[in-house]
């Protein structure tokens, strides 16, 4: 296959499928109890310098307890998969936990605006960036999940997004047409928030899956946070809805309202007031520091954070918003 052009930015992760196979060969397939706490899961699987991916879509079905815990534990020099990341990116940038990012969507919170603090961090020169598009990153995860070293797409061609990527333009051996080869990406660790999981990690996601089915199969280690733990027999009653099987999973943490202040389909809507508060307080670095102390560094757990955000009363209000029915 002829290489016709290549992106100039660094490739942060090795796309060798045999090294990945060697890793997955030794990963346990035993159906054992994997229940733990967010604190222990982060201590064990999110180590300084490792490459991290966060599931969901920015402020929708995000594993926010893990995101907060990574910041609270002060992880440094992580690689980060900036794929459909919004509030998760904002929180991780607040902790300055990463120094290299594969970026398709960062610093923004969609219609809500841009995170000033995340922008400051990205404009500081402290973070190395390689550009991609959302589909290019999903295709990288899909290639990894398939155990091959690259995927093919027709996106990014002809643009600076390609030039600043680590992809290559190749010639199709059948048609002679140009395609973009994107290298497989096996993150060291990923965290995904789901609706239900059993103690072995068999997980059920309701609503859109974003790129989480590919991510779950690409990540070397996978932390599942679940709105609720269910008995294995519940999983077995309807195995058609299981989309992440136990052998992909390393840790299972039960975190009710675990996507807060993000949206959790069919359960609760996003807390737009709290997200607006984040964006507002970032304008003043001193105020922002106090804000982080109050909501992240000064609490012992995500549960305490929820209490500081209004606790069950607030959660009930967000549950009501999710029904899309007017009073």
């Amino acid at each position, binding site marked *: 296959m002829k290489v016709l052009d290549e992106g100039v930015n660094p490739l942060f992760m090795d796309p060798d499928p045999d090294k990945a196979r060697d890793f997955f060969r030794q990963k346990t397939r035993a159906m054992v109890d994997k229940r733990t706490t967010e604190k222990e899961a982060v201590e064990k699987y999110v180590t300084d310098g490792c490459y991290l991916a966060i599931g*969901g*879509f*920015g*402020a*929708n079905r995000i594993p926010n307890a893990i995101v907060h815990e990574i910041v609270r534990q002060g992880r440094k020099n992580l690689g980060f998969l*900036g794929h*459909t990341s*919004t509030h998760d990116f904002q929180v991780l940038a607040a902790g300055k936990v990463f120094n290299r990012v594969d*970026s*398709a*969507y*960062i*610093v*923004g919170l*969609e*219609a*809500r605006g*841009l995170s000033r603090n995340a*922008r400051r961090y*990205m*404009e500081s*020169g402290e973070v190395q960036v390689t*550009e*991609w*598009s*959302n*589909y*290019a990153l*999903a295709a990288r995860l*899909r290639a990894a999940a398939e155990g091959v070293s690259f995927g093919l*797409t*027709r*996106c*990014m*061609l*002809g*643009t*600076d*997004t390609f030039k*600043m990527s680590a992809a290559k*333009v190749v010639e199709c051996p059948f048609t002679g*047409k*140009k*395609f973009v080869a994107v290298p497989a990406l096996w993150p060291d660790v990923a965290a995904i928030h789901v609706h239900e999981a059993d103690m072995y990690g068999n997980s059920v996601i*309701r*609503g*859109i*899956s*974003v*790129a*989480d*089915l*590919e991510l779950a199969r690409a990540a070397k280690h996978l932390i599942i946070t679940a709105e609720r733990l269910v008995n294995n027999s519940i999983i077995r009653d309807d195995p058609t809805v299981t989309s992440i099987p136990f052998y992909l999973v390393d840790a299972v943490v039960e975190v009710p309202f675990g996507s807060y202040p993000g*949206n959790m*389909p069919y359960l609760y*809507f*996003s807390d*737009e007031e709290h997200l607006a508060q984040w964006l507002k307080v970032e304008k003043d670095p001193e105020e922002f520091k106090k804000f982080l102390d109050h909501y992240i560094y000064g609490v012992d757990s995500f549960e305490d954070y929820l209490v500081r955000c209004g606790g069950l009363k607030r959660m009930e209000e967000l549950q009501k918003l*999710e029904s*899309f029915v007017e009073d």
Partner: protein
Amino acid sequence: MAPEYNMMELMICVASRYLEDGKTVAVGTGAPCAAAMLAQKTNSPELVILFEAGGVAPQLPQMPISVGDSSTFYRAVMAAGMVEMMTTCARGQVDYAFLGGAQIDKYGNINSTCIGDYYKPKVRFPGSGGANDFASLCWRTMVMTVHEKARFVEKCDFVTSPGFLGGDGGREEAGLPQGGPYKIITDLAVMGFDESTHAMQIESLHPGVEADKVQAETGFELVIPAEIGRTEPPTAEELRILRDEVDPGRLVIGRA
């Protein structure tokens, strides 16, 4: 008496008329979503709305705040994922997509990545997200934006998403499939692209706007055809549906 409207309402009504019935449209939040919802309630009841995060043909209960929030697959026919949506574009089954950005050049290339030098950006923006994918893979892409010189530039600081790249033959040479920019809808005019050169041209001027005003707000030379159309202002019926059914909370139309 002609009904009163603001510029955002005008842009949404104009955009909605370009969305043909029975076609598919990938939308973001805000004005594009409002345009697609309005089209469904007026000229194109069978228009299919798609969201990049996985929502297929939702019955939107309200304006989404995120392209992945629950409303984007409320009473949808499928709650899929990004690979499903983007491969649908790649197969050639998505007709329209809306894009946005900080800069657009005369060939419809768009910058949503950074201002200034890439490695030392003056301003860092989100980047491509799904925009490059839609711009590469959908048949017709559209932009809704305010018309100002700082946005309509001779050359983007960074080409995040492809328009016609360097002009005629640009997409073919790069290996991109057929497709590209279709309409640019601003608060002053509707722009299209010259069929042979693919340079941006004025197609219709909004009520009360003349071509020299549009050119003055554009950082490159627009193609100005001898005969330019006049944009049909929003009808009373379009405005009623937009205000009462599409955006009663005025989340988008209140921004003008």
